[in-house]
Structure formats: structure tokens, C-alpha cells
């Protein structure tokens, strides 16, 4: 051992220590980069969660205890209906009946109706999560000093009713069902349009087109299209789909004339244009990455080009294609600008019901809320962001599961 050590020492290169030191410094800086990235992400998540939960000081118009001796949640439907009839004006009750006949409502919906129509809770002041956890005594003192009639409640701004209620101008009762459905409709229709077209184009470009100047120009242009600002696609969508193809996108050609061209279909077509380059490029990469040995094996057995593509190239490329689609969908679901141009409404509480409905989407709703003066809307916006993130994660998870299903066939 000693002898060996001495050999290493005597032949040690002069700059070896320096080389080791430099590599250590670089290693630390790479680690630092990663840390900064993760830290930013944590801060982002934290600030959203911080806003989406916390204490609120709520004042009820009518004390729930005065309506019934028991908590509202434990009352029967009939009792709730009678409370409703007793405590609102006749005209108001008629209006409610017209919108949602009370006899058909579920108990939980009746509770909601009683709350919004009679108890009318008003959030006087809301607190973020951190002050709520660290400074509860202060909050209670504020309530006692300034709002003696109010109560302090812990509220999760994101809740089942937040998901299922329609939009409202009241931050306490508003939900995001309309925007959520709008987003989902647009994503689904977009994928249905863009996925097959994108793969088809990628197959043609990779497997069929010869490598001449024309195809090279096309390929370069597709790459460039992916980098065009999304607002440009919005302008394009406005000009072509909303205005130019109004007859089709408004649904007039099949006799639906209740809307203009600012429909889900227009939005989905615009979004498809936006994500097509992404899907094509990724699908091209994935198809190109399929080893040519696989194609040769297939051709060598006397398979045609289509058989080779269909049975071997596409299954092998599918994980990569799906990854690209995940990226594209993630981008589309967060897009705001082009949808404003093609006519997403900022306030709409009618659920989209088909391709030719008007719509709003989550990002637009979030943007809209953050511009409102009331502090509570910021809490609502944070809750919506969480919903948007969850939707995104769900879609991605589904796509990853699908991708794993395809790559499992390949794994050794």
C-alpha cells in the first residue's frame, strides 16, 4: 500500500488538484441552478396556496340560528323549501322558481339557495394562510373591535361548490364551472382536431416526402411557426374563423343562429393552429427517432410502406408523439391572448353546451378576477389557479399513463 501511494505521489500531475477544484466548482454551480429552479417553483406554489386558504371575517345578513333551531345541513328538503318561502319576497321566489324549480333541487342545493338568498353572508375581511396560522388572536381581536356582528371562519376558497357553481359577481358565492367547462371543451376539441392532423403531417414529412428544397422550406417554416407569438394566431383566428368562416363557426349552416362566430369551435380551431406546429415537430422527432432497422425489418418481410408505418413506426413513435402532445396541450390550456381575440367572454354564466356555444376559459377568468378591486377576488383567483394546475396535472397524468402503456410494449 505504502509503495503504491508513493508511486501515485511521485507521479502526480501538477495541475490535478486544480482540475479537481474546477470540477467541484462547476458541480456546485449546476446544483445551484437546480436549486434556484426548484425554489422558484416552491415560492410560486406557496404564494398561490397562501392566497387560496385563510381566515375570513364573515357577517351574515340573517343569523342562521334564527331560521331554524338545527343546523341547515341537517334539515329535510321540505323544511328548507318552507324556510325559503317564508324569508324571501314572493317575486324573488318566483324568479328562483323560474330559474331552478325548487322541487327538483337536491338538499345540498337547497342549502346553498337558503344561504345565498336569506343568510347572505358577506366577507368583510379575508386573511392569507400564513397570517391565519400565526396570528389568529390578532384576527379575532380585529373582528371583535371592528365587526362585532361578524364571525371568524376558516375558509378554503377552493371547494366543491367553487367548482360546480356558475360565475357570480359576488366573490363569496362565485364558482368557476363555466370557465372550467369552457377550458375542457376547447382542449378536447383542439386535441381532436390537431392530433390527427399533426401526426398525419409528421408522417408525410418524415416517411413520404423526398428531401428536396420544397420540403426543406416547409419543414423550416413549421419550425418557425412554433415560435410565432400566440396573439398572432388570435388575429388569424379572428379573421378566418370568427369573421371569414362565420357561417360555419357560428353554426348557422346547421340552423343554430343564437350565437355569432365567437364560439368554442372558433377557439378550438385557433388553438389547433397554435399547437399544430408543436405537435408536428414533436411527432417528426419521434418518428425520426424510430430506428431505421425497424423499418428495414418490416420492408424486408415484404411489407408495404403503409403497413410499415402503421404497425411498426407509429407504435414505436407513439410515446414521443404523446409527450409532444402533452407539451402542446399544456401550452394550449394556459393560453389567454388568442382566446381574448376570438371572443372569450370575460363574464358569462351560461355553461357551454356544444361546439357553437359562447365560452370563457380559466386563464381569462383568473386574469379578470385579479383586476377587480375587492381583495376577496384575489383569493378566488388563487383558487382558480389551483384548479387550473390540477386540470393540467390530470391531463398530463393521463397522457403519461397512456405513454407508459405504449412504451411498455417496447421495454425489454
Amino acid at each position, binding site marked *: 500500500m505504502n509503495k503504491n501511494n508513493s508511486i501515485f505521489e511521485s507521479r502526480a500531475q501538477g495541475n490535478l488538484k486544480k482540475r479537481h477544484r474546477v470540477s467541484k466548482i462547476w458541480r456546485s454551480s449546476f446544483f445551484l441552478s437546480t436549486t434556484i429552479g426548484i425554489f422558484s417553483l416552491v415560492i410560486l406554489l406557496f404564494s398561490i396556496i397562501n392566497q387560496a386558504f385563510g381566515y375570513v371575517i364573515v357577517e351574515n345578513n340573517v343569523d342562521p340560528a334564527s331560521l331554524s333551531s338545527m343546523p341547515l345541513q341537517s334539515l329535510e328538503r321540505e323544511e328548507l323549501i318552507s324556510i325559503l318561502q317564508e324569508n324571501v319576497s314572493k317575486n324573488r321566489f318566483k324568479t328562483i322558481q323560474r330559474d331552478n324549480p325548487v322541487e327538483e333541487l337536491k338538499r345540498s342545493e337547497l342549502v346553498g339557495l337558503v344561504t345565498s338568498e336569506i343568510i347572505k353572508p358577506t366577507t368583510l375581511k379575508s386573511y392569507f394562510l400564513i397570517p391565519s396560522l400565526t396570528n389568529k388572536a390578532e384576527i379575532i381581536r380585529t373582528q371583535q373591535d371592528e365587526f362585532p356582528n361578524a364571525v371568524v371562519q376558516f375558509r378554503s376558497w377552493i371547494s366543491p361548490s367553487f367548482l360546480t357553481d356558475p360565475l357570480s359577481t359576488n366573490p363569496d358565492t362565485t364558482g368557476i364551472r363555466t370557465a372550467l367547462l369552457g377550458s375542457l371543451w376547447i382542449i378536447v376539441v383542439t386535441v381532436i382536431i390537431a392530433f390527427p392532423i399533426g401526426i398525419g403531417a409528421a408522417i408525410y414529412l418524415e416517411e413520404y416526402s*423526398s428531401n428536396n428544397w420544397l420540403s426543406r422550406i416547409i419543414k423550416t417554416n413549421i419550425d418557425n411557426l412554433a415560435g410565432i407569438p400566440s396573439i398572432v394566431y388570435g388575429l388569424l383566428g379572428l379573421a378566418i374563423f370568427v369573421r371569414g368562416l362565420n357561417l360555419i363557426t357560428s353554426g348557422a349552416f346547421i340552423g343554430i343562429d343564437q350565437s355569432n362566430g365567437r364560439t368554442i369551435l372558433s377557439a378550438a380551431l385557433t388553438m389547433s393552429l397554435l399547437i399544430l406546429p408543436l405537435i408536428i415537430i414533436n411527432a417528426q422527432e419521434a418518428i425520426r427517432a424510430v430506428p431505421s*432497422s425497424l423499418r428495414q425489418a418490416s420492408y424486408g418481410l415484404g411489407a408495404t410502406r403503409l403497413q410499415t408505418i402503421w*404497425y411498426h413506426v407509429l407504435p414505436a413513435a407513439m410515446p414521443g408523439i404523446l409527450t409532444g402532445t402533452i407539451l402542446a396541450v399544456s401550452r394550449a390550456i394556459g393560453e389567454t391572448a388568442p382566446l381574448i381575440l376570438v371572443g372569450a367572454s370575460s363574464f358569462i354564466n351560461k355553461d357551454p353546451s356544444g361546439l357553437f356555444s359562447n365560452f370563457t376559459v380559466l386563464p381569462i377568468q383568473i386574469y379578470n378576477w385579479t383586476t377587480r378591486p375587492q381583495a376577496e377576488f384575489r383569493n378566488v383567483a388563487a383558487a382558480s389557479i389551483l384548479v387550473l394546475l390540477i386540470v393540467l396535472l390530470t391531463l398530463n397524468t393521463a397522457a403519461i399513463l397512456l405513454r407508459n402503456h405504449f412504451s411498455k410494449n*417496447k421495454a*425489454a
Partner: protein
Amino acid sequence: MTENKNQPIITVKDLSIFYKTFRAVKNVDLEIFENKITAIIGPSGCGKSTVLRSFNRMNDFIPGASIQGNILFHDKNIYDEDVDPVQVRRMIGMVFQKPNPFPKSIYENIAWGAKMNGFSGNMDDLVEKTLQDAALWDEVKDELNKNALSLSGGQQQRLCIARALAVKPEIILMDEPCSALDPIATLKIEDLMRELSHNYSIIIVTHNMQQAARASDMTAFFTMDEDRAGVMVEYGLTTQIFTNPKNKQTEDYITGRFG
């Protein structure tokens, strides 16, 4: 198949192959005999793989590749207008340098080509028969549904041979089939080739001269001329080429004194 064992199954007449304007292979005349193993040897870049791939029109996929001259298969030029290259490739199968089984089960690897070519008999029997012919049946009979990529390299290559057999070709082209395999797997493939040569004609391109010497009946030696075009220098019985080649270039190459 005809009875006459000495009848050429492929006759190459004055074959030249071009990549765009570059002439990769020049004026090759060659007769491949039925039920023989024919080895094509030569230094890198001498066009031996190019020639092999021209036998089942795999060069069609290379942009800019074109040929002059004739390749007669049963007296019919496979480059004639009325010949469908897909049909050519079914009758002249191919095994590649790197084992390239489909990323599917062993069973499907065999069955796919047959099914695609309209095989209507008992698929289980066909799979068993071809795997036996490829000397793989005993090793995989209990795990036909296993992914083919989980096999060893040598097994994968034998599976690829079985896969080629399943579409019932007359000729099997092998493009350096053992270059990615260990010596034992290589010898197994060589034994298998010998077995298969009773029913098929085999043409093998190899870098390994010992392999050509061990496994083939006929040997063709290719090299590059001064224009870097591949030319055939000598063609004859393997026993003659490896003991007493007529051409100095052949001698230099096989004794390892090339260049």
C-alpha cells in the same frame, strides 16, 4: 425450386449501382447458385452491402440510388417496370447486421410477416415450425409471449432469421449477421446457415474472413478500384479462394495484407 443444383438462381449481369452521380459498384457479373451459401467479402466501402441490398431492392429506399444492368431472379429482371419490389422482398428475405426484432412478443414477430402476406393456415404450427427451423424452438417454446427484446443477441438474430423464414422466401440475404454477436452465437448462426442451405439459397456479406471460409460454399471478393467504385475481383469456390486465390488482390486481402 428446380432440381438442378447447379443452376444459378440469381444472375447478375453488368451491374452498376449509383448514388446520385457516384458510381458505388461497377460492372459486376455474378451467378448465385441454388441451395448454396455464397459469401461476399471485401474491404469497407467496396460496395458489398450495396450489391446485397440490390438483390431485394432495399436500395430503393435510399434517395438517389439507381442501378444499371440486370439482376435476373428465375430469369426475370427484378428491376423491370412490371415487378413489384414488395413481392421481390417477400421472395428474397433479409437478415440485418444488428438483430432487429420487432418490439413485440416472440410469437408476433414470426406471425406478423406471415399474416401480412396473407397466410391462412394454422399460425401456431407455422410459428413452431419456423422456430424449429431457426434452431430456436427449444430455447423459447415456453415463453412465446415474452417480448422478443428480452432475448440474448444471438437468440434475437435467430429470431430474425425465423421471422424471415416465416414468409417462405427462396433466398435469404444476410448483411453481416454476426457482427454484433459473440463468437459462440456466431458459430450457432453459421451452423444454422448450413442447415438452412438445404432448403434455401443464402447470400452473406461478412467482414469476417474466417466466417466466409467456414460457412460458405462460394466466395466473391470485392474491392475498390481507383475511382473508389466497388468491383468484383474474384469469384469461385470458397475452398479455392481461401487456399489458392488466383488474384493477387484477393490473396493480399484474405491474408490480411490489404493496403
